[in-house]
């Protein structure tokens, strides 16, 4: 029975042949929203709390669905979560970074010009231009909120390798912070014409005892004549002083 189901799933997956761009790559262009549930609040399994809906988390490895922190890094995460929630870079209109940008409550668009895979995000109007030409990452001394992303195709899966992070981004609103050693490998696979399986494996030996992986689906927004409207976070921000040390509140 299990074997049959497994075979059936394999056949289904193989049945789908993605549409192609002129250069023969899977065509993922269009508008997408995540199906990451409550991940914007907390990517680990969590019960409901004040203004936070309960959720099963999006971590698929390790099996306990928790971030495999070192003891010291876990203590810091708990302190950040409990005492410094207002330092969340999203509250300062900072770019959400990788992979958090993929599970904000906002949509995004994929554009595939030759040589690049471009992602235009609604949240904080961030863009990522993934170089697909085999070029290396930028020199290590160059740090970016959104990292430096290079990609390649493994069969019909887009693999994006991101490094050069500045250590300023968080992974959610539950204090899961990052360091400059963050290294993210994302995989995007069309499983039917309107669904992409998204997977991100996260490495950082300075914070984690082992690499770990999150997974969820992206769903195509096929609303007629839809396009991404501008989210002017900083320009619209009239409350920034409440989030800064200038007023003594962290």
């Amino acid at each position, binding site marked *: 029975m299990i074997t049959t189901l497994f075979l059936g799933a394999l056949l289904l997956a193989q049945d789908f042949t993605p549409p192609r761009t002129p250069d023969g790559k899977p065509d993922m262009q269009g508008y997408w929203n995540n199906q990451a549930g409550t991940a914007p609040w907390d990517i680990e399994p969590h019960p409901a709390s004040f203004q936070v809906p309960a959720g099963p988390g999006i971590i698929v490895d390790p099996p306990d669905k928790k971030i495999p922190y070192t003891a010291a890094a876990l203590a810091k995460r708990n302190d950040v979560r409990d005492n410094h929630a207002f330092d969340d870079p999203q509250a300062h209109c900072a770019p959400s970074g990788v992979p958090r940008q993929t599970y904000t409550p906002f949509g995004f668009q994929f*554009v595939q010009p030759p040589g690049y895979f471009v992602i*235009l995000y609604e949240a904080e109007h961030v863009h990522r231009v993934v170089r697909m030409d085999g070029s290396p990452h930028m020199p290590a001394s160059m740090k970016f*909120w959104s990292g430096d992303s290079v990609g390649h195709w493994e069969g019909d899966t887009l693999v994006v390798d991101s490094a050069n992070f500045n250590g300023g981004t968080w992974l959610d609103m539950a204090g899961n912070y990052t360091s400059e050693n963050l290294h993210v490998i994302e995989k995007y696979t069309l499983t039917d014409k309107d669904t992409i399986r998204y997977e991100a494996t996260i490495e950082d030996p300075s914070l984690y005892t082992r690499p770990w992986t999150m997974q969820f689906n992206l769903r195509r927004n096929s609303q007629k004549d839809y396009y991404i409207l501008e989210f002017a976070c900083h320009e619209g921000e009239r409350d920034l002083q409440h989030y*800064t040390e200038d007023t003594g509140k962290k």
Partner: protein
Amino acid sequence: MKRFLVLAAAAHLFGAMAMAQSYTPPRTSDGKPDLQGIWQVLNTANWDLQPHSGSYNVPAGPGVVEGDQIPYLPSALAKKQENLKNRATADPLTKCFMAGVPRTMYLPYPFQILQTPQAVVVVSEYVHSWRYVPLYNLPHIDGYEAWMGDSRGRWDGNTLVVETIGLNDETWFDNAGDYHSDALKVTERFTRTAADVIDYEATIDDSKVFSRPWKIKMQLHRRTDLTRVLENECYLNAEAARRGGNSK
């Protein structure tokens, strides 16, 4: 003598035409002129579109306005003068706000143009803003207003024409306080005239502020030293500087 001048002028004109015609831009896979790459202006339009002398933190420049003068309505000029007086703090860029259209194209920061058969994308270093320019028929959303406006593009021979409406009235054209209303319509023309040069024009139409449409012209130059657009997170850098640290 007169005949010589006419001949010289004709020869000059012919030479310019021949030069312009001698360059054929490379094509994308769908046969359109390829404007892709990382570009930046080499001028002082960001500080003042009109001819201006140098001043504190402002490099001098010959201006980019056709006919030199911006044709303000008499009633609109006072606000420009007020903006100019307060430029050090009133320029939206001093607050790290998005630059709007067309100013985003002549900031002292690079941007990248990317193309597909359906769209042109412009991604900027300054505050990571982007413009998505559909080349297909996509209805505007009634009443939609944005810092970067709502653009639609089309090809006119070898020229990309981009029309932008839906701009709010909060951006300036330059650091000299040249401003507009929310009735602004901008028509940009991009023509690649050499391997590393795009001729750029923008026609400004805003009958609430100007007596007639007016035009700016300049060149975009390829940044051959860059493999990607970098980040300038202006407001985060400002926030960090206030705290005495770097940007995070």
